[in-house]
């Protein structure tokens, strides 16, 4: 199930007994014995979740600290991939760049398609079928990422290879398509396509919800003015859903940033390079794929260095997700639909 916010948020039930400024006589009787215990257990569970999140940040920071404070020599001794005289930042920088590049490309590919599917399910598909079709799109989210990796490597990469060659031959002047096109198809462009497929369901789910929330009166008003179906969407549905789609895209971005297996299994990794050449081999890697690649063999300071890169990934995704959620929450308050 995708974790979309439900559009309607009915008033919180319960809580009359202990909330109401109770008459004095009733006061002691409303919450005693197990009632109070149960309340504290439930509240404790809520607080515990906050504690988990805090613990994730704290422990990553504590275990990353030795790597963050280590000298360049110590680092290059401990981590085979870090050459002499390279700081942690110079090493992690290209990884962050690769992560962002892959995720943003995936987002650029997925958002228009996801908006199309959202509109299809909310406004175009026969209403009886809409739910089933929506379920089909959700199935894309149910497929494990390692299977995406397998599929991307063994099926998609060979299919896309001629496309990349064509792009390299004909649009080679464009910075993204420059450079020597890889003969294997195991490049960042293929990764982005797979990531785009993987984040389609979440973007679709959220945008579908906001499109369905469009006030019926707005749509009918547009229809009454003689608008065609597309014009209804352009003047009523899209403006209403804009912030929802933006936050949906950011949720998708967060998903793409943290994806590990599909990247790990498809890309032929490259380190220490800032490169835009998404069709060339061994130019990029992402943080998550790098951690999964090296973690099994790491020990000592190398583990700390890996956790430090993980901390960077955690901070980036948290920032993206919190922005997205804040937009959703703000929208909920001001939206006329609820």
């Amino acid at each position, binding site marked *: *199930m995708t974790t979309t916010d*439900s559009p309607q948020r009915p008033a*919180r*039930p*319960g809580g*009359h*007994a*202990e*909330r109401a400024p109770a008459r004095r006589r009733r006061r002691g009787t409303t*919450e005693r014995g*197990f*009632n109070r*215990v*149960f309340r504290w257990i*439930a*509240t404790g*569970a*809520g*607080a*515990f*979740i906050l504690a*988990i*999140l805090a*613990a*994730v940040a704290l*422990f*990553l920071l504590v*275990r990353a600290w030795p790597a963050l404070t280590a000298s360049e020599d110590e680092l290059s001794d401990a981590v085979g991939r870090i050459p002499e005289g390279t700081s942690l930042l110079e090493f992690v920088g290209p990884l962050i760049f690769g992560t962002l590049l892959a995720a943003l490309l995936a987002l650029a590919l997925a958002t228009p*398609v996801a908006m*199309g*599917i959202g509109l*299809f399910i909310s406004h*175009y598909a026969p209403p009886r079928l809409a739910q089933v079709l929506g379920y*089909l799109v959700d*199935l894309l989210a*149910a*497929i*494990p*990422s*390692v*299977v995406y990796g397998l*599929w991307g490597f*063994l099926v998609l990469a060979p299919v896309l290879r001629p496309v990349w060659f064509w792009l390299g031959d004909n649009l080679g002047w464009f910075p993204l398509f420059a450079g020597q096109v890889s003969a294997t198809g195991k490049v960042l462009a293929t990764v982005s396509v797979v990531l785009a*497929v993987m984040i*389609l369901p979440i973007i*679709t789910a959220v945008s579908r919800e906001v499109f369905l929330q469009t006030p019926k009166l707005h749509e009918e008003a547009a229809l009454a003015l003689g608008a*065609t*179906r*597309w014009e209804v969407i352009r003047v009523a549905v899209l403006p209403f859903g804009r912030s929802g789609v933006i936050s949906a895209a950011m949720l998708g971005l967060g998903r793409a940033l943290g994806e*590990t297996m599909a990247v790990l*299994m498809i890309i032929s990794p490259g380190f220490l390079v800032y490169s835009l050449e998404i069709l060339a081999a061994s130019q990029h890697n992402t943080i998550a794929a790098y951690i*999964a690649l090296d973690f*099994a063999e790491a*020990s000592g300071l190398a*583990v700390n260095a890996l*956790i430090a890169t*993980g901390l960077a*990934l955690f901070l980036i995704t948290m920032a*993206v997700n919190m922005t997205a*959620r804040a937009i959703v929450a703000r929208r909920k308050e001001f939206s006329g639909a609820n």
Partner: protein
Amino acid sequence: MSVETTDATAHTRALLTTADPHRKTTDRTMTVLIWGAFALAMIPLVSLLWTVLVNGVGRLSVDFLSFSMRGIYGGDPSGGIYHAILGTLIITGWATLISVPIGLLTAIYLVEYGRGPLARSVTFFVDVMTGIPSIVAGLFVVAFMTIFLDPGTRLGIMGSIALSVLMVPVVVRSCEEMLKLVPNELREASYALGVPKWLTIVKVVLRTSVAGITTGILLAIARVIGETAPLLVAVGVTESINFNAFDGRMMTLPVFIYRQYSQGLSTCQEGDMQCVVDITYQNAWGAALVLIVIVMLLNITGRLVNRWFAPKLR
């Protein structure tokens, strides 16, 4: 009437009765594009499911499902995924045991008790937590467990904890939605009979929403059962059967798929009939098929439970 008025009327009439061809074309184009977007999304789904089915079904056999990979090297086709299925079930089972109480109680807190800044921040951060990258959850568990254990230790239960970090927010969200669907009248009727609040929650609210909660939990399990990265980091790999999540490494289906894939093609000596060159890929596809079947079964069961057992509220 003057001539001009007639002209104007005719002009207006023409505007009103004949459609603007440009607008019509745009409308048609967009309709095609939007249907096309949906069709485009179906291509990878169909291609993926078909590939997994075609490549995986040939490897499936009783042996494949009931043997482990212990002592299997090179192109030997006699290994199986029993250890991986077992590991997946045990690790996910422990993750469910950890996440469901926390998730359900948090949902109860949010729906029945939640007021003020704590409830608001719990709601917000639960949403944010759904976006934690899975590999970060694995790293967290490794970082956390070094307090108690040797840094190199890898246990099944560590994987369960990592999966719980990913699973709790999903359980909270879905249970919260389900609890909100319980009509207030039921609670009020229960209070009116003098039933204490906690008993009302346990006997009325939870019982009314049990179908929805089951669905939510099944979908949450389906969501984490395919996670690879945290298990790769926190549980490690093994080729043998291990029943005990608290002792030693375990194999899981997703990690098995990755490991078989990363071993690549095996080299066979000429004339060796017991050697299959691409056995690792066959193993990976076979395991992928089993994993997808498990995930789909969980999804379908979840939705059917909700459809069949949900109380009729209207």
